[in-house]
């Protein structure tokens, strides 16, 4: 009798847990908890990521630096040439012209939008309210064959071709371990404007107590990370627009 009772209780519990409604905040908190703790994420000042980018049949070694203050820089190596391919120093966003290989400034809208992105550090979900972002649990959805919580994050609007437009992304958090496995973003301009691009993220590994996805891939390119360095010492020249060249 007692045995049966406990089985029944267990079944009821099993059912009620699966019906237990999660809120967006709980999911996001679980994510930070499971990937190193919110406090540790808050302490993160910057990262250097080294890896290989695969696109259009090419393998391109890269090194990416991202800092809390928004500065970022991507160095790539192509045919023996190592160069900073694109960077943002907090004021100027620039990249190399593919014909001349010289640095050129991004247009003012792209630079402004880059500035806004600073707040995303290290994740748009970390203290999202202070950033002025909104998050919403859209519901459960199966992606990559896996049950996930679909969470919408609404960031500050961005400006594209002279018009302000909403900036929405969707993150799919695995219901089992609460890490995002897919990030979905909208293409913001050109003939594909409005279409969604999905980035699959995986191969989470621990680096000094924090978990980072060592693999990110979309239909256009994939990035395979070999190394994450936390809180790196960086030189200003890594980000600065190479004037007078």
């Amino acid at each position, binding site marked *: 009798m007692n045995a049966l009772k406990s089985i029944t209780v267990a079944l009821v519990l099993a059912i009620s847990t699966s019906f237990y409604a999660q809120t967006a905040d709980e999911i996001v908190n679980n994510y930070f908890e499971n990937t190193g703790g919110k406090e540790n994420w808050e302490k993160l000042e910057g990262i250097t990521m080294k890896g290989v980018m695969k696109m259009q049949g090419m393998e391109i070694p890269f090194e990416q630096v991202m800092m809390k203050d928004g500065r970022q820089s991507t160095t790539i190596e192509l045919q023996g040439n190592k160069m900073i391919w694109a960077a943002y120093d907090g004021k100027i966003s620039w990249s190399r012209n593919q014909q001349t290989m010289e640095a050129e400034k991004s247009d003012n809208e792209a630079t402004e939008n880059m500035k806004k992105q600073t707040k995303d550090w290290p994740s748009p979900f970390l203290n999202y309210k202070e950033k002025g972002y909104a998050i919403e649990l859209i519901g459960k959805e199966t992606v*990559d064959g896996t049950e996930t919580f679909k969470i919408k994050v609404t960031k500050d609007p961005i400006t594209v071709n002279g018009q302000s437009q909403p900036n929405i992304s969707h993150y799919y958090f695995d219901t089992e371990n609460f890490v995002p496995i897919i990030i979905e973003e909208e293409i913001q301009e050109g003939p594909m404007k409005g279409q969604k691009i999905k980035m699959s993220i995986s191969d989470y590994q621990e680096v000094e107590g924090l978990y980072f996805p060592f693999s990110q891939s979309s239909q256009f390119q994939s990035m395979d990370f070999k190394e994450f360095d936390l809180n790196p010492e960086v030189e200003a020249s890594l980000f600065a627009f190479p004037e007078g060249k």
Partner: protein
Amino acid sequence: MNKQFIIASLAILFSIHLQAQEVVLKGKELFGNLEARQIGPALMSGRIIDLENHPTNDRILYAGTAGGGVWKSSNGGASFSSVFDDHAQSIGVVKIDPNDPDNTIWVGTGEIWTRNSVSIGDGLYKSTDGGANWKKMGFENSERIGSIEINPKNSNEIYVGVLGALWGDSEERGVYKTVDGGKTWNKILYVNEKTGVNDLIMDPNDPNTLYAAMWEFRRTAWGFNSGGPNSALYKSTDAGKTWNKIHNGFPKGDLGRFALAIAPSNSKIVYAVVESKEDKGLYRSDDAGASWKLLNGDFGLVVRPFYFSRIVVDPKNPDILVKGGLFGSISRDGGKTFKNLGSMHPDIHDVVFDINNSDRMYVGTDGGVYRSWDGGSTMDMVDNLPISQFYHISVDNEEPYNIYGGLQDNGSWWGPSSSPGGIEARDWNRVGYGDGFRVLKHPTKNIIYSEMQGAQNVWRYDVDKNYTKNIAPLPIKGEADLRFNWNAPMAVSNHQPDRFYMGSQFLHVSDDMGDNWKKISPDLTTNDPAKQDKESGGISTDKSGAETHTTIFTIAESPIDQKVIWVGTDDGNVQVTQDGGATWTNTVANIQGLPKNTWVYHIEASSHHKGTAYAVFDGHASGDMNTYVYKTSDFGKTWKSLVTDEIIGFARNIQEDYVNEDLLYLGTEFGLFITINGGKNWSRFTNNMPAAAVHFIDLQKKTNDLVLGTHGRGVIIIDDISPLRQINQEILVKDVHFFDPKPSIIKEEGGFGGGSTELQFIGDNPSSSAKIIYYLKKRHTFGKMTLSVQDQNGTEIVSLVPGKAKGINIVTWNFRKKGPKVAAGKTFTFSGFTAPRASAGTYKIVLKKGKKQYESAITLQNDPTSLISEKDRIAHNKTTQELFNDMEDLAYLVHKIDQNIKKAEAVLKKVPASQKVTSAVVKELNALKETLVVTTGDNYVDEAEPQLREKLSDLYGEVAEQFEKPSFAQLENQEVLEARLNEAKATYEKINGKQIAKFNKYLEKSGETPAKILSKEEFIKK
């Protein structure tokens, strides 16, 4: 409680546990990242129901389509993206909340231009983020929603006009109102179960004033009725509390469907088109509906009200108005006179004026969206709306195979499943006019059969001769007239290439490709005269042939025995002959649970067993939306239902797999469903597959591609479904399982495509790469996972990006190995990015997941159509490899040069006194380097003179890219370049022995280390 009971309970639990071990994966869990490919086409596009533009941003526009969902443009109609893939694709109305136009959008589903082929909706939806996410807001059984009106001062106050069910009675019709943003709804105007709201409009200047047009209407499979005593126009001035009929000046007697519009710039001016036996036409009221005056009864205004009942008034000028119609009509004198809109696809359903400039207009037609910049005089079609509505598709056996199909009001076409640069509009060829339905390729000759509505023409098109002949069967002397369905069935024999079948109420067969016909059956239908209505339409007679009933609808000759032929009729008979038509048996009475006279939409004769067939029934035209799928294994003596509640929507088509008879593909009004266990469980396929109505499915035998003809999203293909054949319980419990792949063919082709503009839709090609297909029991999320292609010795050829989804993963390999290490120069050498192709043979596939390793193999085969000999291939590989090595030798040489230069320059900077020894190194090495790589210029018109690297990589790239053995010219060139390379190496050694040696001695003396030069192996690996 006694002991026995406990044991019994435990036994139950135990058995549940046992059952639970059978793994049943549903939907995406099973299909993983097996994805559909949408190939359009968009060149003929499809029917548009409703257009809606943003009230303040002229770049934003929504199009609600008949069968392709909702599309949004954010660039003034230049391009559109689908925003409603997961929901019912048949749209009645799209409405932007004027108080929150960037974010809040409402969609009422279920198209409202009620032709015979319309689909159904499943309620009202709302988005609060500009279409990114949708939430259902009720009205599940409304079937069609035609109007949504929102108080421009209060987003919570919304009115919805429900047109309701087309083929049956329904109480879910009328005007509904919410005051809490859609949480609760009140029905505030209702007439009866036959009469719905065909239009509801709110006075833009007074949200309490509403006009509602009520329409009595009904469709059956054999007729249509528009109008009756309950059709009427109502007005409310108290926010819907009370309603009054406003017919002062309208014709007396029964009325039909209204078209209705208020001039936004003057609320007193209201226009209405009235369907009536007498005095039909456009009425105008200048006193807000108190009285009406007939202005015009031109054809363009009164034609087919059930299909065209939309009037739109210019937002700025109350005297400019447009009426939908066969061609669309525009008036610039307040409705007194009209002229046609500019030339575009006929059947105009909706028009919107640009908010700022009324010369800019958007028009929705049976053939997509058109734009005008000159007030509707000239029209430009949007080329990127792949919402084509196929009734039927078929495939041939060419490589690449072609897809044939007919479309609603858009003729018949065929186009390739793959084309250089993608499947472009120009790749599609027309093979019939009017409404297109079934299109079939002759099995052996370059001949295509196609037809138009009701078999008015049945074309036999000789592609090579560009010659067409009408071969429609004709009535025989002394016998009944032939009744052909609107979508008349035809079939090509599996056994006799020239044999061609057509069905009227009889089955006709021709053994000479349609030149001569023989009747091989009696009337196989019920021949019920009550269902042979020749005066369809109601108030406006509408004789198009679309309602011809009691006809044969599907013909299936057994692939195993040509004497076994199945015929299904639209009035519910399932007839079979086993003697080539001498005797027929109606087997429908043997089917349990099927309502009488339910339309037989498709019969699929099994390719596994002679007596086995599948029958799909569709009762929607009698208001029955249930799913009916049956299987017989004994020529129809007994039938078994294959339906489970996992299937959504009424079904139209089923396809049996050619290899695994338990694998079935079912097309319903809401998408594609697949079973891998003979119908015990069904999974909806949603990977890049919208919830579109699947009208027909074909399975290409060589490629195993599942090809879907959708009625609203064009042709959708799932490339190579063969992994589904292999799935069984044994596989599903494994952590990783590699499916047996077909050998991959290294196709020897390369052509020119492209040329479409960026605003033209281009269908994706299938991947021509090798495929590595595996199943993962669980998605890979934590830890490293790699996928590597290795030769038989375990040396890595290339590393691939593994798929990590739970379920089926498909990883492609483009047959390329790693590219060479290229010498560093100032600019790039584009040929240097070329990676050599792997040779035919068997390769190891190694998947590493954490600490575990899983292996499989893949076989590459040379193109069987190739004329290249094995000896030539060996020669080609040899030269490619030699040039590859030359490239890397050069790269290494340049590395050594660069390292020494760098070191010497650094030392010189630090110790100016070292000038003599360091500058000698720099000078000599730079002189050498300048002959090896480009050190100046850019990648475009300031390009420097090519040096050894550029010349070598051009030759390497060319040779690596080709399949043939190298030409004499190439070999000669190789010799020249290799001589230069060797010379350079020698020069370096000379410098190394002299200037560099001196420099190194100097370094040693000053306690410094020499330049850091990697070993060649280290360098290559770096």
